[in-house]
Structures are given as C-alpha cells and as structure tokens.
C-alpha cells in the first residue's frame, strides 16, 4: 500500500445537500489513516467556510462545527478559490483558521500536486 496525497474538492453550498458533510466525513477518515489530505473549496463550495451561519434556523445539524477537528487529523491545507469568493461577493470572513485564499492559477497548481482528487 502506497501513501498518496488526497485532494477533496467541495463545490456545493453547505446546507442544500449532504455533499459538504459527506466530503468532510471522508476527509476525516483519510486523516485518521494518516493520509496527506487537503481540502479545496470551489464555486458554491466556498459558502462552507464562511462564518456566521445559523444552521438551526433551517432545522439542520451544524456540521460546520466539525471543521475545527481538522487540525487534530493534521489536515492543515485548506484552499479557497479567490475568484469564487469574488463572484459571490463574499469577503474573507471564515469560521476556521489557516484558510489559504488562492488565485485560480495557484488553486490549479496546488490541485495538480495531489495524486488523487475527489469531488463533492
């Protein structure tokens, strides 16, 4: 079994589907098996890292709180697409630390540094 670097791309807003939560579940498992894992947020996926969201207002469990566990699993590479933020008129107001906002070109370069890409 060879160690691989895993990129998980999030492309959906947090509460309109289970995609975000199921992507996070997968990321944490890869982390617990000590696989080098990075999270990427692209398109509507950037909404997942924006702070000040109230999930209980729409009767949904706030899985965004679990993002704080990422550090325990050594998932420190969290990349957000600047263009996706700009297109949605979002500022860099994130609910987690160590988020790196990257230009499309940098975003693409980082993605290509990984062996396996999963998209949610």
């Amino acid at each position, binding site marked *: *079994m*060879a*160690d*691989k670097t*895993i990129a998980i791309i999030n492309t959906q807003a947090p509460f309109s589907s*289970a*995609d975000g939560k*199921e992507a996070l*579940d*997968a990321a944490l*498992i*890869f982390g617990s*098996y000590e*696989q080098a894992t990075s999270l990427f947020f692209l398109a509507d996926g950037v909404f997942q890292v924006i702070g000040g969201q109230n999930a209980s207002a729409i009767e949904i469990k706030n899985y965004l709180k679990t993002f704080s566990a990422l550090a325990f699993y050594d998932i420190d590479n969290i990349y957000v697409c600047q263009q996706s933020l700009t297109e949605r008129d979002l500022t860099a107001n994130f609910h987690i630390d160590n988020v790196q906002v990257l230009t499309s070109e940098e975003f693409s370069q980082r993605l290509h540094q990984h062996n*396996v*890409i*999963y*998209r*949610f």
Partner: protein
Amino acid sequence: MQNTLALVVTTPPNSNLTTTAINLVKTAVEKGVAIVGVFFYQDGVLNAAKHLSIPTDEYQTLQHWQQLNREFDVPLYLCVTAAEKRGLTDELGKNENSNIDQAFTVSGLGELVELTCKAERVVQL
C-alpha cells in the same frame, strides 16, 4: 506491472454517470486492468437497493453490477453509514429479508482509504 483501478460511485442508479461507470469498469476488465474495487458512497449506495424496480425496457443498473461481481470478481463495497441514512440496512442479515443486494459487501469509509491507496488509478465520475 499490472494496471490497477479503483472506482468511486457517488451517483444513484438512474444517473447516466453510473451507466458510464459500469461501462468503464467493463472495458477496463476486458483490457486486463485489475479492478481493486468499486466503492459506493453518497447517493451511490442506492445502487445496492435490492427492491428497486426499474421498468423492464430501461437500463437495469443492478443486473450490470451483479454481472461484474459474479463474472469478473469485481468487489463492490458499500459505505454503511451512507447506506443507513438512505434506508438500506444490513441488520436484517444477508438473507432474503435484507434490502441490500448480495453482490455488495457492507463496508465503511476505511475501505475507501484502502482502495485509494491500493489502486494505481482512482476514478470518480
């Protein structure tokens, strides 16, 4: 060295991406690629729903998975957490009461990690 492939299916049986996944696995097997496993996650777990009844003149997704498993020994792994959230359960046992088809192996996300590491190439459609 033989080529090895793992496939991750996250789309339900009525998605055309699932049909494409089946065709990809079939072609890979024919070309001598070793399939280390197909992992079903998210709505992909619905592919294992035994009682799904699709009109006979439509594409029979489950039959194709069963064939791949039976004739080519392609392992089909099901994420149990995702399956239970969608009404599929192995608590009924591996018998006629279960609503999970017998071609599928009930598994967890740990299997996804194993497959990801074992296979030279990983494909998710």
